[in-house]
């Protein structure tokens, strides 16, 4: 039996400590140790994007990172996007545009698109498609997802003051 390692994480603004086997992925640590089951695990080898979380400001696949590697990191999961019970502007746009059906892929798409629009509030449809090419959705056919992200840009432009 391998020794357990202690991992300290700041997740959605709260400090957590977990004892994990080194082989525990960040995704499993978030779900099983921190009980943050909003992060979904699809393929578990880095192609589907469902497990995307934001680590120190960058969207990454939490199934391709061991929790021990994230020790000390500042993490945002899908649970950290909403404001209490109020949907974030991006989430509200997904609802308006019917950009989800079963919802399994949605947490990874929201975390990815949230950082994209925070950094590039003027991203056009091509850029959004390129970035979201790392997220597989089997329900929507992607059209509504792209529309929702395009629609949400206005809120990010106001927030950053980057837009007109």
């Amino acid at each position: 039996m391998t020794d357990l390692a202690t991992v300290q994480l700041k997740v959605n603004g709260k400090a957590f400590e977990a004892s994990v086997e080194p082989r525990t992925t960040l995704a499993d640590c978030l779900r099983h140790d921190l009980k943050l089951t909003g992060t979904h695990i699809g393929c578990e080898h880095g192609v589907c994007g469902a497990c995307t979380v934001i680590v120190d400001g960058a969207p990454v696949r939490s199934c391709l990172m061991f929790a021990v590697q994230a020790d000390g990191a500042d993490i945002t999961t899908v649970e950290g996007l909403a404001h209490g019970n109020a949907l974030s502007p991006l989430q509200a746009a997904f609802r308006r545009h019917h950009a989800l059906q079963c919802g399994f892929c949605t947490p990874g798409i929201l975390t990815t698109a949230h950082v994209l629009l925070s950094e590039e509030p003027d991203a056009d449809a091509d850029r959004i498609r390129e970035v979201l090419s790392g997220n597989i959705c089997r329900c929507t056919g992607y059209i509504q997802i792209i529309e929702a992200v395009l629609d949400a840009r206005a809120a990010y432009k106001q927030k950053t003051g980057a837009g007109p």
Partner: protein
Amino acid sequence: MKASRFDYFRPTRLEDAIALLAEHGREAKAIAGGQSLVPMMAFRLAAPRFLVDIGRIPGLNRIAADHDAVRIGALVRWRDIERSPELQVAHPLLVEAVRHIAHYQIRNRGTVGGSLAHADPAAEMPGIAITCEARIVVAGPRGQRAIPATGLFVGALSTSLDSDELIVEVRLPPWRDNRRWGFQEFSRRRGDFALAGVALFYDNSKDGQAANVHVGAIGVGDTPLRLSAVEAAIEGKVVTETIIRDAGAAASESVHPADDIHASGDYRRALVGVLTERALARAAGLPWRGDI
């Protein structure tokens, strides 16, 4: 699937990392971004008993360009290259190739050193290293040495690195102002491994001839390849539509990819010809016959 059990070390000094690798030999693996190694471990194609995380060793994430070389630290991530205003000028071919690597989330973590050490024959960074005659600086118990890229890649997923050596930097020869370049690859879905890819550059002489031609291909052999017959078809010539076709034909004849589950060898040979034509047309600023 879940990875096999391992012990985890996170040294903060290069010499400590090398000592750990030396102590545990072939049972140990270095990890940085983990974007190639972790999937291998998830499939249990790799099951190292010891992981040495080099991700927090300081000094390995620098990008610097001067008249000698473009130096890129092993821990530089693809996103750092994509976002580097310096590299847009100092090595535009590298920046374009990096844009083709996997997906946004992978590029946020994957590293230059990791890709070189993983040595996937379809990967972009090894292809750029071969095409551009990069030197790979590695550190081991006996100090540092610089390996030419041709001496690093010995087969698919196989390098000449000793188990106690770490890549610390890649050095690309400096870019030139009169340089023309193209990078093309094809995959069935955005972000998948390339079925084939071509990187090329040449320097435009005063009378418009191509000099110092370098052409490389990925995905069509056990390692990235330099295509010397293609270089010979272009060298000293003014690039015209005829030269572009000749170069494409030479490229297809130069490679002998095997059939595999993703594509037949014949398909890849045809593809590398088309990609060579397209990359050369882009480099020369000419229309390509397949353009709509």
